[in-house]
């Protein structure tokens, strides 16, 4: 009987295990294995060599690009958190009726009915040298010359990131906030807390798990991105994703794999550090 239950348990767990092995573990293992291979301009040689890593760590470009990637991630994170928290707070605490909450929440998701690339590219005519933003500012007399930094700059890259990923911050934060008992807010007021004190001492601490989940979404999305950086910077800026994509375009798979492994480790370390601060288990 006991043995029977043992087998039953394994059988029940096996479909998901197989899916995860086939679609997650094996691909990652392949990348790790390939990262130790060698490549020339015209061939890829199975081997165990550290030359990809040596090249990666020996090049100053790597550090610059990793720095740029972390910078994009940090700035995007800060902005999406600020906007996402505000939107979620408004939805959760200022909208009284649940129907209205759901309606407004769905409204937030409407932009997601179009593809990322289209939403990204639609910024280009807006931000360009003779785009809507520049001509409007000029006609209002705010500026004389078109602003050069609006498009194909860090500004436009981060703008697109924030536009694309804020919802990933709104959703988990809103989800956590709706579970906060409103009588806690009343209790805080009864205990003399001002609006800001209630936010700081009650709402933010209770929303931390949601903030953390949103943070993980945004960080992994931004750090793994390459297409946004390419389009919005007009190929003038680089991040790790673009480094990998360039290697692949040149058929340098082992080098691309090595960069991917280092990126994966970096992201895991960042998330590992974050998880030490906040326990998200009860949210899952």
């Amino acid at each position, binding site marked *: 009987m006991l043995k029977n239950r043992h087998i039953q348990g394994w059988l029940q767990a096996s479909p998901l295990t197989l899916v995860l092995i086939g679609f997650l573990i094996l691909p990652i293992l392949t990348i790790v294995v390939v990262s130790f291979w060698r490549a020339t301009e015209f061939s890829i040689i199975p081997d165990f060599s550290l030359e990809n890593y040596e090249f990666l760590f020996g090049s100053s470009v790597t550090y610059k690009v990793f720095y740029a990637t972390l910078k994009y991630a940090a700035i995007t994170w800060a902005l999406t958190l600020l906007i996402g928290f505000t939107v979620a707070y408004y939805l959760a605490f200022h909208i009284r009726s649940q129907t209205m909450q759901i309606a407004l929440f769905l409204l937030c998701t409407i932009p997601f009915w179009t593809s990322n690339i289209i939403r990204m590219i639609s910024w280009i005519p807006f931000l360009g040298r003779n785009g809507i933003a520049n001509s409007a500012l000029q006609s209002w007399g705010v500026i004389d010359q078109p602003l050069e930094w609006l498009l194909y700059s860090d500004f436009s890259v981060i703008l697109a990131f924030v536009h694309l990923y804020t919802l990933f911050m709104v959703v988990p934060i809103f989800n956590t906030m709706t579970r906060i*008992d409103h*009588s*806690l807010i*009343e*209790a*805080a*007021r*009864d*205990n*003399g*807390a*001002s609006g800001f*004190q209630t936010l700081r*001492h*009650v709402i933010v*601490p*209770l929303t931390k798990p949601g903030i953390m989940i949103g943070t993980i979404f945004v960080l992994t999305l931004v750090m793994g991105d390459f297409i946004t950086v390419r389009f919005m910077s007009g190929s003038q800026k680089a991040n790790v994703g673009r480094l990998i994509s360039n290697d692949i375009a040149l058929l340098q798979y082992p080098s691309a794999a090595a960069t991917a492994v280092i990126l994966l480790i970096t992201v895991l370390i960042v998330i590992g550090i974050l998880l030490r601060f906040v326990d998200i288990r009860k949210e899952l």
Partner: protein
Amino acid sequence: MRSGKDLELVTLTKRYGTTVAVDRINYVFENGSYVCLLGPSGCGKSTTLRMIAGHESVSDGSILLDGFDISHLPPAKRGTAMMFQNYALFPHLNVRDNVAFSLRMKGIDRPERHKAANEMLDLVHMTAFADRLPAQLSGGQQQRVALARALVTKPRVLLLDEPLSALDPFLRIKVRAELKRIQRELGITFLHVTHGQDEALALADEIVVMNNAVIEQAGPARSVWNTPRTEFVARFMGGHNVISLNGAKVALRADEVTLGEAGLLATVTSVEYQGAHVAMTSMTDAGEEVLALVPEEQFFQTPKNPGDAVRLAWDEGRVHRLQA
């Protein structure tokens, strides 16, 4: 005995659109008394309490404490503190920090606010649990912490919104004795909202019975129970029969009804053994239900069964005329 320090409601009104939740009520809560606001759900008792606490705006009228109009002050500036029905403890703070929360909001230093919190925890016998989180406490323990948190602000009036409703019946009786002890020790006014008449009778110096947004009757617990003014109060307080005698409604205590040779003819509809008493319900010829609480020994000398005809008697002096 008015002392100028009382809590007074003056034509206090709450309207939600066209619905009137509290309709021009006037009342003086004597300083240092334990008052129960009693009534069925939706009668306006909770709204009244929340208006006094400052969590609900006043549509009309005013609330006076110590002779000052507090109707439009923020909750923490009124000299009141509220204990919430579900306790509303902050789940991320331990017991001590929950109790010290209001002091922290005032910017009082950590050692000082912890000292004050510890004193309050001592009062409610929760010192041993000071470092636990609310989720690690039982319902009764959470309730004590909520009480300590409300009392740490040194309120003049403590407002309790159905404080015992989340506890099991056994604990409820224990905790209500505790509430009474703390009220007596502190000597402040406790204003306790409940829908349980036994709870109100057990605790209150004074009972305010509310129904349909107005005060139906108010006064010392014994007078409300013994001399109900209206049929509603008589029925709600329980233990009374409301019957028509000579064209007027009267209240008759169930334990005053005896079974005799002469008296009102009735048919037994149910018999319930309750230990010290037997609760016998019967139907009179006029179609009115009468409950008789007959002492156990007396009942079993001549036991009755549903369907039996009985004669109900009582001492005429114990019949209480109702005004409405």
